[in-house]
């Protein structure tokens, strides 16, 4: 582990960060087009509209970058970066394969990941406040309330896995994985994945950006590339949440055969989960604001606590 090694790993993570969210975005276009019979994204470029994402990029890049007159200029311009950067940092700590195939092995991996992901909410709050627009402010506050509520079940579910593995290091958890963990931790996996979905503000949990009532929430005033950065942070978030669920609950690089191809298993599971995320967006209606909060506090948290108790009992029974 010298400086050059560290640098190489950081560059590799940056490349992953720039590629995977775009792949997810393209997949979302195609999946939505097929599931909902949308013809729009199927034209650009010929075969299955492969160039749709490029066209989107060009469109975002050539739009004028507008900052409202009444806005707090610097905070307004800083907000997309604050929303996006945590996901880049989190990617550093997610192990892809065995034998140190990870950006940077962090000792307290789970803690690191959840702590850094929690900073993303500052970006939405800053965006909502600095836009000088009451709908944006409301959207930002809704985002903050939702993210604070769903962080708790997420943490509890992750704590259950850490308890089962006896470590908080992410590679350590994957190393300790056995196939029977999947039924054992199934409730925790459900809670974690659902809460992660809510952290991303994806449908059916996209109340803060509800386009029918508060018109894209905190991001109303954003145009062009800055808006694209917020979208990118959403897709990077899909990668991160799917990857984390894979690592914590689905055994990461363990597959039915050949652990030497471990990174392939991790990627496959991550993409399968990302597909589920897109699938849910296409098929589920949006929750109402109060339903959203009630779901977090009366369904997810008790479930997570039950999982924690179950993990503890079985852990004591085994040892």
């Amino acid at each position, binding site marked *: *582990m*010298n*400086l050059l*090694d*560290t640098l190489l790993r950081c560059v590799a993570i940056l490349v992953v960060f720039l590629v995977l969210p775009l792949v997810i975005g393209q997949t979302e276009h195609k999946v939505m087009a097929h599931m909902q019979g949308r013809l729009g994204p199927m034209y650009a470029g010929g075969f299955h509209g492969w160039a749709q994402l490029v066209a989107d990029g060009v469109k975002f890049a050539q739009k004028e970058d507008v900052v409202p007159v*009444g*806005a*707090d200029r610097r*905070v307004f311009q800083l907000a997309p970066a604050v929303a996006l950067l945590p996901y880049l940092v989190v990617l550093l700590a997610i192990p892809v394969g065995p034998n140190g195939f990870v950006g*940077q092995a*962090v*000792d*307290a991996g789970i*803690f*690191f990941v*959840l*702590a*850094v992901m*929690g*900073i993303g*909410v*500052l970006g939405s*709050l*800053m965006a*909502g*406040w*600095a836009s*000088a627009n009451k709908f944006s*402010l409301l959207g*930002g*506050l809704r985002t*903050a*309330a939702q993210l*604070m509520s769903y*962080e708790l079940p997420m943490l509890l579910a992750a704590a259950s896995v850490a308890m089962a593995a006896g470590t*908080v*290091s992410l590679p350590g958890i994957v190393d300790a994985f056995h196939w029977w963990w999947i039924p054992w931790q199934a409730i925790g996996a459900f809670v974690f994945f659902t809460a992660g979905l809510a952290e991303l503000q994806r449908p059916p949990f996209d109340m803060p950006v509800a386009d029918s009532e508060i018109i894209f929430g905190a991001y109303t005033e954003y145009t062009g590339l800055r808006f694209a950065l917020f979208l990118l942070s959403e897709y990077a978030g899909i990668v991160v949440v799917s990857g984390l669920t894979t690592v914590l609950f689905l055994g990461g690089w363990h597959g039915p055969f050949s652990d030497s191809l471990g990174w392939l298993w991790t990627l496959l599971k991550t993409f399968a989960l990302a597909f589920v995320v897109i699938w849910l967006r296409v098929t589920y209606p949006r929750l*109402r604001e*109060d339903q959203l*909060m*009630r779901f977090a506090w*009366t369904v997810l948290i008790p479930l997570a606590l039950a999982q924690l108790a179950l993990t503890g009992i079985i852990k004591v029974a085994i040892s």
Partner: protein
Amino acid sequence: MSALLAAAGSLEPAARSFLSPTGQEIVFLLVGIAVLGAAVVTVTTRQLVHAALWLVVALGGLAVEFLLLTAEFIAWVQVLIYLGSVVVLVLFGLMLTRAPIGRSPDADSGNRWVALAVAVASAGTLVTLVVDAFRSTWIDLGAGAGSTRVTGEYLFRYWVLPFEALSVLLLAALVGAIVLSRTGKGGRGPRLRPGRTTTVRPARPASSARPAAGAGTSASAGAADATKER
């Protein structure tokens, strides 16, 4: 993170003197100056939300300091609790009550010279005390000295009692918050049931309201409604 630490400088202080600092100590000092600057801006800026955002910088810098002292776990807890929750709650409160864009003239306090004097006095006392207490004490910051395992072992072996006492304190605070938020013992008009939307409903069901309001056709309509209900 260990690679970052290694890049910052050797962990064993080679020469134990203030005059030949290691790379790690220099980085520590620089980050410390940045934290101090952010803290000063936090209390001097005239824009409330900016103050809260500078607080983020100051607390994040503190997390970096913990990291440089090899206390990884504490650093992440700092990020999780202070940056992810406390500052967000502060911002939440500010934005819900009063946070105009631009300066808030009433954010200035007439007591600021007294406050400055108190701050300088307490800082002076603390710095003198700490420097005097630890003048010739050196701690070897070997890698992993503040890792999760070590922290956990210390916490649950030597400090279990304070830990549990703190838990009880927090539980009491939580219960107190719930009690405070459930004010009014009935009697103050209809209470909203938590978790339900407050959709406005007509005072009476429509079938019983219509015959009372109508004149000519009310009887037949009421009869129709009544038969429908049966």
